[in-house]
């Protein structure tokens, strides 16, 4: 699948939404700007299924709301730690195996972990994730496993 036209369409849609002027002059500027951007990106050779993961778009629509709900829950937990009169933390660094097959999947998983407060991905070597957690319970519960499975599903069969 050729990704350049898709990128161009997305960029031009962004241009239209942000500018919201439909005079020929501005449309012309938009066309030129988007074309230059796409040209540069194509020449740099960074336009592939990692930089524009169109194949994930539909499954991401199911993943993102779940992620937002997870973020909300862990926010409440961290807020409780911070607001307690005496701060009780037992931070620790935990290693565990991720089950994603592609780098893109690992990237999404690592960023999902970091995006939920209470856990931060500090390093990845191969499948081995190194995660810093503010309290031990944040990490060894079943929720990380759930997230792991969900990202693996998001990544899909195509891999």
């Amino acid at each position: 699948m050729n990704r350049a036209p898709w990128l161009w369409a997305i960029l031009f849609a962004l241009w239209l939404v942000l500018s919201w002027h439909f005079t020929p002059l501005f449309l012309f500027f938009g066309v030129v700007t988007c074309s230059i951007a796409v040209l540069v990106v194509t020449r740099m050779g960074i336009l592939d299924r990692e930089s524009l993961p169109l194949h994930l778009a539909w499954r991401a629509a199911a993943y993102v709301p779940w992620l937002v709900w997870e973020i909300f829950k862990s926010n409440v937990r961290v807020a409780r730690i911070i607001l307690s009169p005496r701060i009780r933390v037992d931070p620790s660094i935990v290693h565990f195996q991720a089950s994603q097959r592609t780098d893109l999947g690992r990237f999404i998983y690592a960023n999902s972990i970091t995006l939920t407060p209470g856990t931060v991905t500090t390093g990845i070597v191969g499948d081995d994730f190194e995660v810093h957690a503010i309290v031990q319970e944040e990490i060894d519960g079943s929720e990380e496993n759930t997230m792991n499975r969900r990202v693996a599903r998001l990544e899909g069969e195509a891999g």
Partner: protein
Amino acid sequence: MFAVSAAAVLVCMVLAMLRAVLGPTAYDRVLALNNIGTKTVVLIAVLGFVNGRPDFLDLALAYALINFIGTIAVLKYIEYGDLGASAPRETGTE
């Protein structure tokens, strides 16, 4: 009601400023810088609504990106001591 939100953001900026001044490590200061950047973005968005002219949101949009680039440049400098250096190649790193 937006004024309440703006006040909350200002309180947060004061707290983050405290962390930036106290330090103690460089990483605390980077964290505070990044955080004040985020709060500036939110502050600009909220102030647009306080004044009834939410036209400044493009500015917030640009800030969000500039802040990110600045943070990454700073951390690259801390980690490699040089802005031009490229990361040593490790296999399997993201």
